[in-house]
């Protein structure tokens, strides 16, 4: 009796909620994944199929859309890809160098006006780049840097400073002070400590910052949209938007282009999920 009673309780207390949990979560999984699956289906269809039966499995799969985009230079896919990569690599390097240097000072050294300087540099957290994009454009124009990837890199880096200094300062502060004292007694200069001790120890934090910066830079539309109009400098999000405008009625081509431009982000996400997640949580829980 007792055993049966226990089992019944078990059913209602554990199994049923579990079932319910999985049911709800699975529905949400479907809602999240479905749009992406329909996109991939569309990318593998001919134009006719796209209009006659838009949501079915592409059978047989037509890879022509993809090969057309990847092989025809006037589609510009590889140029956009190259531009996006250049911008992403330099922005990320810039953020890593600039922010780790500043965060090191804020975490490890003392000077008059430190709090003031820190508050000033983290002021950027109070508004996103969208708010300042017009003022930034006017300055870039004044510097004659429109239509250069350099401008995009500089602006992306500048707007990533506040958040990443804060994230890195948090990590750097958690490295024991004794280590710095020991290094200092051994005659290690401040720069040596930063370069040889701190950075290697902070590698997980740096890779989190890098992963997050890469995603943000890769997906950024507004900065290139505003600073660039020459087609040879379009980045992937910008070019994808333009492609949609130009080939709007060729739904299969648009789907193929969008799917191809989503691919790098998804592959990157599969490999760097842990870093992206830890970068985001570290940033958000402090900012």
């Amino acid at each position, binding site marked *: 009796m007792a055993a049966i009673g226990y089992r019944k309780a078990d059913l209602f207390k554990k199994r049923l909620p579990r079932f319910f*949990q999985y049911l*709800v*979560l699975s529905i949400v*999984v479907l809602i*999240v*994944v479905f749009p*992406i699956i*329909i*996109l991939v289906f569309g990318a593998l269809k001919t134009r006719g199929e796209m209009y006659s039966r838009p*949501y079915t499995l592409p059978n047989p799969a037509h890879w022509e859309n993809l090969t057309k985009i990847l092989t025809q230079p006037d589609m510009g896919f590889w140029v956009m890809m190259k531009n996006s990569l250049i911008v992403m690599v330099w922005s990320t390097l810039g953020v890593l*160098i*600039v922010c780790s*240097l500043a965060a090191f*000072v804020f975490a490890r*050294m003392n000077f008059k006006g430190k*709090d003031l300087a820190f508050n*000033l540099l*983290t002021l*950027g*957290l109070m*508004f*996103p780049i*969208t708010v300042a994009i*017009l*003022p*930034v*454009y*006017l*300055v870039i124009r004044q510097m004659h840097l429109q239509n250069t990837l350099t401008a995009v890199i*500089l602006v992306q880096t*500048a707007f990533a*400073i506040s958040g990443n200094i804060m994230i890195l*300062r948090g990590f750097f*502060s958690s490295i024991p002070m004794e280590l710095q004292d020991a290094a200092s*007694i*051994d*005659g*290690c*200069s*401040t*720069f040596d400590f930063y370069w040889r001790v701190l950075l290697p120890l902070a590698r997980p934090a740096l890779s989190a910052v890098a992963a997050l910066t890469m995603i943000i830079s*890769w*997906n950024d539309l507004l900065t290139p949209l505003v600073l660039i109009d020459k087609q040879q400098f379009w980045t992937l*999000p*910008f070019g*994808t938007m333009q492609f*949609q405008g130009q080939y709007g009625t060729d*739904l299969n081509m*648009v*789907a193929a282009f*969008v799917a191809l*431009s*989503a691919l790098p*982000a998804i592959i990157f*996400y599969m490999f760097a999920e842990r870093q*992206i997640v830890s970068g985001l*949580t570290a940033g958000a*829980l*402090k*900012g």
Partner: protein
Amino acid sequence: MDLAQVPNIAMQKKKLKINKRKTQDYVTIIIFLLPAFVLFMVFIVYPIIRSSYFSFFTWNGLNPAKDFVGMKNFQQILTDKIFMKAVENGLLIVALSLCVQLPLSLVLAILVGRDLPGRGFFRAIFFMPYVLSEVITAIIWLGLLNPDPDRGFINSLLILIPGIKPVIFLGDMKIVMASIFVVLTWKYFGLHMLLYLAGLQNIPHEIEEAALIDGANQWQMVRHVTIPLLATTIRTTVYLSVLGALTQFNLIWIMTKGGPVNASESMATYMYRYGFIRFWFGYGSAVALVMLLICLVFSLIYQRLNRAPDYLGGV
């Protein structure tokens, strides 16, 4: 200390310089902070100050700004019905985010919990839309929301229900904002859920168990134990989603360009229209300043309410 006895010529040389350490430190501090300060000043502070100046002019960006108009731009912005519509839309998205999107993300985070088998899978899937750019999200959803049931998947499902006609999701002034909000939720709920999951991870299991042993039911435990302990995380997500909602640009621009008839205008699309399409740079600067001011006021209120702001030195 024994580290110090390791013979190392380079290190001993450096030891001699130990007196100079103080001045060296100041040099280091300046050199280390310089790049951040230069970038920050040149690309954030200076542009904003310069635009504050332009905001008092009517200026098309071609000739030097000479046509001083005083506060006229600001007056015009604040009396423009379209700008007010943009503010209203921003506040609508804020309200919907706080009342629907965040609670939904919280419920999902609690459902996924700490030790559900498959937790990593759900987290990875739910977070995936965040990794896709807003451009990709917008184009995917433009297709799904197509008013023609033969093109738009959602309408093709809706017409299966008897008596329901296809909905013009993005072309109907009354529901366009709701449609955009659905897309925003699809893209961003995973981010908030992820943050809640991280917050949940920091709550000791014992506290919740203690509540259950003391006779609380599941709901009471979540309501009185879990949610209060997540307060910091919840505040953070509120902050992120309010700032995001007020300055939303990409999705709206690609999906509706602010239409139909300005029904989905946001402050950012309004600024883009006047600044970058009509080239009213004086007026656009003024719009940017108004947006900046709104963001700053919100941030300051937020800080006031959180007496020890989590992001200004509270590590």
